[in-house]
């Protein structure tokens, strides 16, 4: 692998991690809103309990994405910055609202209602804007003369809506799959059933939306279609993982330990499904970062900087991994936290 390929793989890995973490996080915000308003407070409280300590960490992943793009691919910053000025600034505004209100929600008892609406509504809008980056990067929406985004086109072509549907259904699907596992860990049967049922109907919806989006994209961008066809085995493998995970949402083994279902297995399969699909989509997209002007080989940084960045990753991860483990122990495993009322 050359520098460019290593760099884009790391960047893409972070995109994928943020996609999963973000889906779970924003989705939990949305479910938190739905259920605290519907009186089914246990499911809402569960979603919020997960969200309180984690959103900050999730947010750092977004910053990580931006910084990794700048540091590994400095010459791609200009065109991408131009193209994403509008959606990027909107995401910033919404994210600011959201994070601020999340903190305040934890710290005051007043204004609960409006606070949960803010985190729920932004939890839908932010992922919608983020997923639109994918069609933008295929080039069809960037004005070749000014480099600016053609907003009119973005909002009128069906392909945008296909990606949007895919993004939103994936977000809700992944978050309900995660929350059903989380509520199992917390031994909360009511919340568990609620979220498992959501995962059951959202799974097929997300899958269909994804297939539709990819097909429509094939019409718009021939180069991408050819890439996708070349990656069909990866997509197939991703589909198989989906089916496995989906089956795990229904099966209840006789063994008492598993008798309430296998949400952990299901969620792990779904992560694998999205990982393989992202891998395939990313490979199909190569060598372009932004079609047709920016390729990874042309945009990658100089070798000296590349090497020192890799060293800093190695050191940084060595410090952080124990931190993440400790965090996970405290908030995703510790019964004292999970069972708090």
């Amino acid at each position, binding site marked *: 692998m050359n520098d460019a390929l290593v760099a884009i793989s790391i960047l893409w890995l972070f995109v994928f991690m943020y996609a999963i973490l973000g889906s779970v996080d924003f989705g939990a915000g949305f479910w938190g809103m739905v259920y605290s308003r519907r009186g089914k407070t246990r499911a809402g409280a569960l979603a919020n309990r997960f969200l309180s300590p*984690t959103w900050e960490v999730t947010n750092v992943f977004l910053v990580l994405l931006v910084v*990794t793009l700048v540091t590994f691919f*400095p010459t791609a910053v*200009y065109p991408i910055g131009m193209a994403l000025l509008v959606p*990027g600034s909107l995401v910033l505004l919404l994210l600011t609202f*959201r994070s601020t209100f999340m903190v305040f929600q934890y*710290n*005051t008892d007043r204004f609960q209602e409006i606070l949960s609406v803010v985190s729920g509504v932004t939890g839908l809008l932010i992922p919608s804007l983020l997923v639109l980056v994918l069609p933008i990067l295929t080039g069809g929406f960037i004005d070749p003369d000014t480099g600016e985004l053609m907003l009119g086109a973005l909002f009128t072509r069906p392909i945008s809506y296909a990606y949007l549907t895919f993004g939103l259904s994936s977000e809700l699907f992944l978050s309900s799959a995660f929350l059903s596992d989380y509520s199992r860990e917390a031994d909360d049967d009511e919340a568990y059933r609620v979220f498992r049922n959501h995962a059951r109907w959202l799974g097929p919806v997300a899958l269909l939306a994804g297939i539709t989006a990819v097909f429509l994209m094939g019409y718009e961008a021939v180069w991408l279609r050819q890439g996708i066809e070349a990656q069909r085995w990866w997509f197939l493998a991703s589909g198989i993982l989906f089916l496995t995970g989906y089956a795990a949402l229904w099966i209840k083994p006789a063994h008492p330990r598993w008798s309430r279902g296998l949400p952990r297995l299901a969620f792990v399969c779904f992560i694998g499904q999205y990982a393989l699909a992202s891998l395939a989509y990313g490979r199909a997209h190569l060598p372009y970062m932004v079609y047709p002007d920016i390729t990874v080989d042309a945009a990658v940084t100089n070798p000296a900087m590349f090497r020192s960045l890799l060293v800093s990753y190695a050191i940084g991860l060595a410090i952080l991994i124990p931190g993440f483990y400790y965090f996970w122990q405290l908030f995703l495993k510790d019964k004292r936290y999970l069972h708090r009322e």
Partner: protein
Amino acid sequence: MDELIIARSLFGSSLGFHIIFATLGVGIPFMILIAELIYQWRKDPHYVILAKRWTKAQAILLGVAIPSGTIVAVQMSLLWPRYMEMVGEVIALPFQIELFAFFVEALFMSIYVYAAERLSPLARITSVFLVALGGTASAVLITAANAWMNTPTGFDVQGGEIINVRPLEAFFSPSFRTAASHVVASAYMTGAFAIASVAAFGMLKSRKRGTAYAAHKKALMLSLAIGGVMSLLTGWNGHSAAQVLHVHQPEKLAAAEGLFETQAYAPLAIGGVPDLDRRELVGGVEIPALLSFLATNRLDGVVKGLNEFPRETWPPFYVHTLFNLMVFVGTFLMFLALLAWMIKWKRKEKPLPRWLLWVLVGAGPLSMLGIEFGWVFTCSGRQPWTIYQYQLTSEAVTDATGLLGWFILFISLYVMLCIVTAVVMRAFFKRRPLEEELAAVGGKGETVGHE
């Protein structure tokens, strides 16, 4: 309006907004750590309560610090894409490492806030230490990037191409050491004075014999001690920063002092307004030879004046005022802290006079103003360069249009956030009066003041 002016105003305002919360995010965790340590040493439960309350306040501030920082980071790429291109080639390292600092800070802040009651004392102190370390590290790292913009090194340019990049040399650029220590000291100072302000206000509002008064007084004296020491350090390494300017960015120093003629025995100018057309300082007091002494350690040292440089590269005239104000803040607060300690020492157990408390209420906001003056001074004093002698601000800016709408939108957002933060702070602490929390632990809150 000119898109460049709007881009500069938008970015400057975003940073000016972020820095308020970022500086407190460096300074307050440091104070929390000290309070936790004092508690372990003296076993006075007041300090734990103080640490807890400061943590709550810090958690609320974090709710603005993190999104505003995210805004700055993304806006940097959106508004200054040509600058970020060079950053990516040469000074990517601090930005990258800063992320690890953010992760450390975010992880352990969540742990300290949401899991405090499940942690052992040692784990609690370790967590808060890591939060403070993460905050300080992010300040040092971002300052490394800023220092490089002022004194760029670690690369060569050949035919418009950047070649031969040396990442570590870029990181440790000539102004890095002084800038980083100055930024950290001024942030600790500001965190301490912010707490002093709140404590002084609390003392004015509480009964003189109450436990709340005693706890506020402990907070006040602690934060004045730390604030005083830190303002001394700030002035000290600010002086070193000025000496670095003398060597590496002489026109910035000349503009800061309103000095036009290159001369030995150069005077230090306080106040006044530089008139760029007549090339002289109007008004203002001049202390003979002091500038030469401060910049070069000798009275006959030669300090360069603005006339040495082409007019197009002069920084704006107002940096002189900004510099004066920053130095004033440092000097004033250092003496204020000293004065307050002397009065407390003379009056022994008697309460502090109310006029002093009222002055102390202003200390935190004043210190924060010092931070703002200092940053606008470095960033504007670098104009017209974004990367000194390599990239003009007009070359760095985006070609995108229609920035005015965004400017208005973001300014409204910042105003709204300030209001909401204030409302939430008030609501939070109104519902949890200090007396009640103190009563819950009992403890040896010595009663103060028998008039």
